[in-house]
Each structure stands twice: as C-alpha cells, then as structure tokens.
C-alpha cells in the first residue's frame, strides 16, 4: 500500500502521534494494529484533506461570516446557520485530486478485502477528544454498509458537515473555541461481514480469574450475543498457556447477516442442523485469545472485547476486533487477600484444616 497522499492515510500508518492528522478514533485503530491486534482494514481521510476541501471556492470565509456574532443560546439562529453551512458544505464538489486519492484507496481496500466495491463504515474521527464533551466535534456520525465510491464520497462529505450541527456550533461558542481551529478526519473501514462473532473477556466474568479468557460466540453478526437474543457457545481459555480448558456448545437459533437489497442487517433462522454445531473453530478460539491477551497488555487491564470472524477475508486475516473497553465488574472490586497473612506453616495448617471438598 505504497501511495502516499496528504489526503488519505492507511490505519496501519497511524499511531498515537497522528491525532492531529486523523483524529482519535483512527489513530487508536492504528495503535491497535501496530500492537498486533487485527481490526477491519481501512483508511482515514485526513484533517488536511478536510482543510483543503473547505478551502476551495472561498467557502471557509463564507462559513465564518455565517457564524459571526451567533449567540450559543439562540437556538433558532443556530439551527438556521447550521442548515446554511451544511448545505454549502454538502454542495461543494471535491477536487479531482481529493476524489482520485479517496477512490484509489477505496479500490485498494476492496482488493485487500476480496470484495468488489467493499461495503464500509464511514465515520467521523474528531481531533480534539481531549475536550470534556466529545460531541463538540460534531455528531460523531457513523454510516454503515456504505458501498461504491460515489456513496463513500457522499458520506465523507456528510461527516465533514457534521462539524456544523447546531449543537456543535453552540458548544464551540460557549467554550470560546475558535471555529477555524477545528478539523475533522473520516475513517473508512471494511464492514465486518461476520459468519461468526461475539464477545471476549480477558478475565473470567464468573469468578474473576485473571488468568482466564472467556469467549462467547454465535453465528452471524455479534448483535445476537450482545443483545442476548441467543445463548452463545462459551469457551474458557487459559491466558498463560493458551490451552482451551472448557467448551459449552449451545443451541443457536437466530443470526444476523446483511441484506444486500437494503444494505442493513437482517435476522434469520439458523438451519436446524447447524444450531448445535460449534460456531467457531478451535484454532480461531486460540487466535482470538492471543489477541485478547495482547489487547489487555496494550491497555494494562482486563478488557471486554467485541470480535468477529469475517467471511470475506482470507483465513489468516479474518479475525477482527471491533470494540474494546475496560472490564468494570471485577476491576472495580477491591481484591481481598485469599489467604490471611502468616508463615508458610500457617498456610499449611490452614490448608490441612480446610481439606479437600468432595462436592
């Protein structure tokens, strides 16, 4: 993926120092990739791309003129200004360079993903997430199952214009944050088209064992697992030896997959003969657990992770991490010592007294 451009940038070329250029979301994706964690492939339209775009046709001046003297509490005025700016932004054509660069990266992405005109998620990636209210940067718009270069470009523009929602404008005025210092990046990322998906905890949520990884999986998209619509298969993996210690296979009656007519996920019945089959193969379980271990190491704490096994990608590149957040239940508990203080002999006495339970 050689071609360099000031307008677009592959996720793997992003890192924690690229927040200015590609926003928080895209730079953290880059961080994960560089830590050996696979996420759906994609690229960012940079803030530089955004700035070049709105510099065209003197639209920047036009925007500032509209914003001049606005009161952050005057909602009707804010709404009117927002509508005007967003219309101007969305009607502004991209430059040929801009279109060519995005189109070239999208074409390459489709090749990587082995899907012609690969469906992607287009989402804004703000540059100033260190501000207390992330909504300042816009609506953090996310558009799913976007397909084809024309649609991709259209939604990039929608993300750009989301910088100028009434709420975002009001917030910046209130916080006295200069409008000309905000910029936005847009992430374009392959939609995980999973044949199986689920969640993973890098701690056993049932007993708090930190040396365990628990994986839940079911067919199709992970929504069934997250929402509790099915009882997923459950696997227990030892985080240190990476051995699969236990498996419970459940009956999984429903699954989501994309309906290409409407480009939206749709619920289907799992064929009866497949319902009680293990929804993820052993090798993938271990692969996933290894990624979980890396994610925990990256964040320095037990994590709660959403993952998917993609059906478009080749076998060695098909397991994706979609979302990772800190585990809260066990992590917030104060860890009481399991043994009273004492010498080895005290512990031995206590252990002999306790004995081995037969139940």
């Amino acid at each position: 993926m050689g071609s360099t451009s000031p307008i677009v940038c592959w996720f793997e070329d992003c890192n924690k120092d690229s927040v200015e250029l590609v926003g928080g979301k895209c730079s953290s994706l880059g961080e994960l990739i560089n830590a050996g964690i696979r996420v759906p492939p994609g690229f960012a339209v940079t803030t530089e791309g955004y700035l070049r775009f709105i510099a065209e046709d003197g639209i920047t001046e036009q925007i500032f003129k509209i914003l001049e003297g606005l009161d952050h509490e005057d909602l009707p005025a804010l709404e009117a200004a927002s509508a005007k700016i967003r219309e101007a932004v969305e009607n502004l054509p991209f430059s040929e360079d801009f279109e060519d660069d995005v189109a070239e990266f999208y074409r390459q992405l489709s090749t990587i993903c082995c899907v012609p005109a690969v469906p992607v998620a287009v989402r804004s990636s703000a540059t100033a997430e260190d501000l207390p209210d992330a909504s300042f940067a816009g609506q953090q718009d996310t558009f799913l199952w976007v397909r084809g270069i024309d649609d991709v470009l259209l939604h990039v523009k929608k993300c750009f214009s989301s910088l100028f929602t009434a709420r975002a404008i009001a917030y910046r005025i209130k916080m006295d944050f200069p409008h000309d210092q905000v910029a936005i990046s847009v992430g374009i990322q392959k939609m995980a088209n999973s044949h199986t998906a689920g969640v993973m905890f890098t701690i056993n949520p049932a007993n708090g064992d930190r040396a365990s990884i628990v994986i839940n999986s079911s067919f199709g998209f992970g929504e069934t697992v997250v929402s509790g619509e099915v009882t997923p298969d459950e696997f227990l993996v030892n985080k240190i030896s990476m051995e699969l210690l236990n498996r419970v296979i459940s009956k999984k009656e429903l699954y989501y997959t994309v309906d290409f007519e409407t480009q939206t996920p749709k619920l289907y019945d799992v064929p009866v003969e497949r319902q009680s089959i293990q929804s993820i193969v052993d090798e993938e379980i271990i692969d996933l657990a290894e990624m979980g271990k890396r994610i925990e190491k990256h964040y320095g704490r037990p994590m709660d992770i959403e993952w998917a096994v993609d059906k478009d990608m080749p076998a060695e590149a098909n397991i994706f991490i979609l979302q990772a957040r800190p585990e809260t239940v066990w992590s917030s508990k104060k860890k009481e010592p399991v043994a009273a203080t004492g010498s080895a002999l005290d512990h031995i006495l206590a252990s002999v007294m306790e004995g081995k339970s037969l139940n």
Partner: protein
Amino acid sequence: MSKSFLNPHEIETIPGTEGWERMYPYQYQFVTDDPERKKYEEETFWFYDGLHYPEPLYPFDTIWDEAWYLALSQYNTRIFSLPPVYGVDHRMINGYVYISPVPVTDPKVVEARVPDFMERAGYYYQNWDELEAKWEEKMKGTIAELEALEIAPLPELEEKVVVDDALGESKGYHLLKSYDDLIDLGIRCWQYHFEFLNLGYAAYVTFMGHCQKLFPDIPPQRVTQMISGIDVIMYQPDEELKNLARKAIELSVVEGVKFSKSFDEVKAGLEKTEPGKEWLAALEKARYPWFYVSTGTGWYHHDRSWNDDLDVPLGSIVIYIEKIMAGETIDRPMAQVQQERDRITAEYRALIENEEDLGAFDELLQTAKTVFPYVENHLFYVEHWFHSVFWNKVREIGEIMKAHGFIKDVEDIWYLKRGEIKDALWDLVTAWATNVKPRGPAVWPKEIEERKGIMEKFRQWSPPPSIGPAPEVIQEPFTVVLWGVTNESLDNWAEIDAAADMDSISEFKGFAGSPGTVEGKARVCRTVADIGMLEEGEILVAPTTSPSWAPAFTKIQACVTDVGGVMCHAAIVCREYGVPAVVGTGHATRIVKTGQTVRVNGSTGEISIV
C-alpha cells in the same frame, strides 16, 4: 447429593474362594460380629487403592500395606499431630485393599492438636534439607544392612569353626534370625518412607490450594509445572541408559550391543573384544544402584528390577542407540522445561493483585520446591532399590523352604503370610535340628495350590471404586494428593462400571495430567516388557508407569493410565517431555484396544476412541 453406596458387609464371597480371609491379616476383614466395629465400617467411606494395587495382593506382599498402614498413620496421629486427621484405616475385600482416612471429629481435640503440630511439623519444614540429608544416610544404611544380610542353607553338620570359636549358635537359629532381620529391615525402611512424605504432600496441597483460590480456573498441571524442572534421582536410571547408548557408539560396539535381545548372548559376544569389555564394565558400574529400578511400581514381588532381567535395560539402550543414529536428540529437554516453568510462574505471579497473596504465593512455591525432591526421590530408595533387593532375599528363604519340601517352587512363597513363613521356618529348623520329618511339606503345598485358585478368581473380579457414604471433605494430605479422590472421578469410574460392555464405551475421562491434545494409534502395554512393541508416535495406554518405563516416553505422543493423580510418574514425565497425558482413568487398559485411534486431551482429561 444422593448416591447409593455399597454396604461392605453385603459384598458376596466369590464362589470357590470361601475362607479367603485366612490369607490376610485378620484385622483387614469387614466383620459383623462386633456391633460397634460393624457400624463404623458401614458408616465409613472406603475407596479402592488402585494406585498401589492394580491386582489382588499376594499374602506375603501384604507386608507393604501393613507397613504403610502403620507408618503413615503413626506420623499423622502420634508424631506430627496433624490436627484434623488421624491415620488411614485399611480393609480388604477379595484381595483388594480399601482405605479410609480417619478424621478427628471433635473440634476441641482438633484445636488441642494444633500447638504440637506447629512445633513438630515446623521443625521439619525449617530444617528440611538437613533432615533430608540425614534421611538419605539412614536409608542407605538400611539398604546396606539388607544387602549384607546373609541367608545360609542348613548344613548336615555345622562347620568346625562353631566349635573352635565357641560361637554357641547354629545355622538353624541364624535362619530364624535372618528372616526376622529381613522383615524388620522392611518395616524400618517403611518407617523412614513416611517420615517426610505427608509433610511434603501437605506443603504441595497448600500451594495447589492457594493457586486455586487465586485462579479458580487454574488447571492442576499448571501448578505442578511451576515445581517442574528440578533434577531428581528418579531420572538417573534412564540417564544411565542414555549414557550407555552414547558409550556404545563412542566405542563402536553398536553391532555387538544390538546383536541379540538376550543380554547373555550380547555379553558373550562383547567379552571377546577390548571395547566390548570396556562397555560391559561401564554397564556393570551403572547397575549399582541404578539398575535396581523396578519394572513395575515395586509394590509386588513380581515387579522385577533391571538387575533381575538385563534384557529390559538392553532393549531400552538399543532404542536410544537407534535414536542417536537417526540424528535425534535423547536429552531430556530440561532447559526448555525450566524456561517454560519460569515463564508460567512469572505470568501468574504478575496477575496476583495484592501483597499478602503474592507473599504467600512466593513462600508456598518455595516450600513446594523444597519438598519436591523428597517426594520423588524416596520412591527410588524405597520402592525400587530396597524392594528389589528385599524380594530377592525373600526368594533366598524360598530356596531353603523348597529344598526342605515346604514349597514346590520358590515363587510359591508369596502365597504365605509372613507370619506363616515364620511358623514354617520354626517347623523346618526344629525338624532339621532333631533330624525328624517336618509337618510343613504335607501342609503348605496343598494350601498354596488352593490359594492360587482363589487368587485367580480374585483377578477376574472388578473391585468397586468405593464403598460406603462419601464425606463432604477429605483432609488427609496423602489421600488428597495421590488419589485425587473427587466425586467427579468416582462418578466417572462408576459410570464406566455401570456400562456392562467395555467395548461400547467410546468416551471416558481421567485427570488432566499434562496439557495438549493429540490423536493417534493406541498401544496397550500391560507391563514394561510390552514397551518394546511401541512404535514411534503411538499413544501409550498402561495400568500405571514407573521410572523403568522412561524409554517409552521418548517415543510416544501421549500417555493414558488407569491409576494416578497429577503427581504420578506418568504425569510428571509427560510434562517434562511436553507430551499430553490423562491419568487415573480407572479403566483405560480395559476400554482401549491396541491399534484403535484415540484422541487424548491432556488439558481436560477427555479421551475418545475415534
């Protein structure tokens, strides 16, 4: 939980074995003539000690069971004052030994036993290495006495020296005395056997328990792995074989060594050349004591040592020679084992979240490492070296009894209780002294024939895994470690027992002994003599294994045993070699047939016949 357990008094005598009880000590019987004893026996949980006794006991071999009945129990009850538990009680049904740890039921008594325990056990833990060194001296001294014990035949006329030196004793008296000394040395050796063992197990169980509290999902073999990679003499016999293999190549006597499966033939050939003689000398040097390793567990007289049958080590040496010639390494992967041990320990350690737990972890790990060598090494001294010499001394007694017509064959001696042998020897020496016909030749051969028939019937009987109601908790450390008695394992065994047809079983479970999953062809080896048939990459299925099985472990890709817990020989060696093991399955050798494809999951303990 409600389970219907067997009542020990309702187990029926096998037809044709009536009166079998006379073959064993009378206190081993389940009885109904004493109401108090009957009630105790019915209310107690007895489980079959299949680890030590995969087959019925010969009357003489009962000596070791009585020896440990005494030794283990005295240390718990009378010496170290283990607070919650006394000894382990023993019974016998149809030649099979059933045992039961005896809890201290009164909490006040438990409490009162604590101070003595802390002082006495504390003394041993604190001075472990020093006391263990003393132990080794005591043990070596005992073995030296045993080796020096002379068992002389009875002469027609005593040598003149008896008169010249005014000895005042006869060979008849010496025979009685030698027999008494022999038995005494055996019992003494077992006194030492348990001097450290239960304290060692208690330390080990404590470390295991601490790890399981910190990490509820931790597989037991991950805990034992943290104590692995410590050199113990259990591996030395095998190391000697490897050295002899290397030496054979070095001296270019490979063809001579491989000339025959019979050691006598090989020896005859090698003696003709200088390098051959040098190799034989090296072998001779390795034999004492290392070839006293038993081909079985050492618990039965028929577990012969390598010294008794040099064809066995010869076969293993040839296996190693072939491996070296094929360019394979035969070294135990010690460095890898230690590296992996250190990695696992460090990773678990890093997950411990408070200082108290971390401190206890470090202390208990250190204690477990301190006790580990004894827990392994005593086996070589007692069960292998001492027992191997001992059995042969008893055979010398047998020779004399045979010469006087008391038994038809030396190997018949095992059908007599040791007290009966003493009685017979009295009969023998008094008749010899008096020059009259002893009564024994008309008594014992007939009795022995009958006992042979009884034992044959015992062998065909399947001892139930347990009898009587299971308690909630078992506190006796020995019981906890070696049998890993859990309801789960009893359930597994009971399930298999319930299946009338062993051939119908395609899936069963045991203890996860060494992690990993493999699929391969099974080879059922009932004794170490069968390991010559093992082919590269097969899965070994055995009743149990011992150090003399070591060469097998370089060939196999997994091991399954009938008996044993996570600390048994097969589990330890498999972890060292990094091959999966499932141990304590109860019935693997009866379920699996050689040539079947089996899948062994050493992480979960599951076995399936594919």
